[in-house]
């Protein structure tokens, strides 16, 4: 579903040249839930923005959802869903209006957009929220609206950027359950960045740890923990690999 080789992004300004991502190789198979972890400034967001066509790589190649990232960015956009970290709907906007607009932008006619939005609101336990302004929803409900936004066109691959940041533990667990169900029912592939190691541990088949613009470790959470020793946590894996604790990074972010 994602194959990247030597993906690189260099920012050049008069003052300095910064290699934000220094040649990332990664593969994600269909139906996998993959967690993308890294300290602040490790290149996590830059990589995610490149894979979702928001940033053009300065080097390397990638195919995303079967299309060439550099040659066919519009085709990539048709096939992926993306849920950005900061939300997707303005506080005064009505949930249903924004979802229907998004559906129309993916080429659905008005009737198809209406029925798709209705079905999705039901599936994500948002029935009855259609006419509500986003500001009137709880944090968990707003995040589910964001996820609905990324799923309207039934993409094969969904990118989630810090999907549960700022949510209470109950809402976080609820969101994990929705992601699991989407994978089970629709074979959705999910690539998510997170600051919560327990999230990666509970939800992901595999995690990739990026540091200094390079993938420094990858594997199934259980396998990575076993490398450290019996009873090890993913926090200890992260600390061993990067020399930093992710929880503090997340709290500071």
């Amino acid at each position, binding site marked *: 579903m994602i194959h990247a080789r030597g993906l690189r992004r260099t920012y050049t300004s008069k003052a300095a040249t910064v290699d934000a991502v220094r040649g990332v190789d990664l593969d994600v198979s269909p139906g996998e839930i993959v967690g993308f972890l890294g300290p602040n400034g490790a290149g996590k967001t830059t990589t995610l923005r490149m894979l*979702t*066509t*928001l*940033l*053009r790589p300065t080097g390397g190649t990638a195919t995303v959802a079967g299309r060439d990232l550099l040659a066919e960015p*519009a085709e990539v*956009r*048709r096939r*992926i869903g*993306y849920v*950005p*970290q*900061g*939300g*997707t*709907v*303005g*506080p005064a*906007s009505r949930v249903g*209006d*924004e979802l229907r*607009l*998004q559906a*129309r*932008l*993916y*080429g659905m006619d008005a009737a198809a957009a209406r029925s798709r939005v209705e079905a999705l609101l039901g599936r994500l336990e948002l029935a009855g929220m259609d006419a509500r302004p986003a500001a009137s929803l709880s944090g968990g409900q707003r995040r589910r609206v*964001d996820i609905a*936004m990324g799923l309207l066109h039934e993409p094969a691959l969904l990118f989630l950027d810090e999907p549960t940041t700022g949510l209470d533990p109950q809402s976080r667990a609820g969101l994990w359950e929705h992601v699991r169900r989407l994978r089970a029912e629709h074979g959705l592939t999910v690539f998510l960045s997170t600051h919560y190691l327990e999230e990666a541990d509970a939800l992901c088949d595999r995690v990739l740890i990026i540091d200094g613009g390079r993938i420094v470790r990858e594997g199934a959470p259980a396998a990575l923990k076993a490398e450290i020793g019996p009873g090890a946590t993913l926090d200890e894996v992260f600390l061993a690999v990067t020399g930093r604790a992710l929880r503090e990074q997340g709290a500071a972010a």
Partner: protein
Amino acid sequence: MTGLILARHYVREVMRTKLALVFGALQPVLYLVLFGPLFARSGVGSWEVLVPGLLVQLGLLSAGMSGFGVVFDQRAGVLERLRVTPASRMSLLLGRVLKDVLVLLVQAVALVVLGWAFGLRAPLPGVLLGLTLMLLLAAGLSALSYALALTLHPDLFAPIMSTVLVPLLLLSGALLPMSLAPAWLDALSRLTPFRYAVEGLRACFAGSYTSGSALLGAGVTALFTVGCLIVGTRRFQAENA
């Protein structure tokens, strides 16, 4: 097509808060009501001179500040969400510009009707041509405003634009004809496209459709708008927009 879908969505949002529609046109309306009678009796000009100027004022202030909307959308993540859809960057800009033009059309028609009630008398083709010219100008200015909103620091957009727009309005001669200005002010005024738009509009309202002022106004406004749309599209296409 995508631009039309976006424009319809934005217009519906504006219609939901009808007060914004009214307040957007309030300043030119107040000038019409409180300044117009003085202007018409001062011997400086007539309603046919003032109303075209107020239309340009409406376009300048409304379209000039329209970029504010994109600042909010950027903060709320809406812009990023739209940029990952298959919609072209150009349609993301044109949808917003078209919404601004449609809203301005409603406000401008209301202003002309009110002007008529006060004593404006102008040929209908002239009024229609004048409105077209004003909307063309507003389309360009709106595109430029969005480009600036994506370029400037979000906190600086409003203060910078409100500081820049007022002198541009005064220099355009929208409120008082530049024929009254000293030579240096007249020369400075000619450096802005809005001076030509105002004079073009006044020529249309006077029925002088083929006069130099009308043709120059149309030409300068068209060039300005094309230039602004190119700048706006490039800014929307930039990856850090």
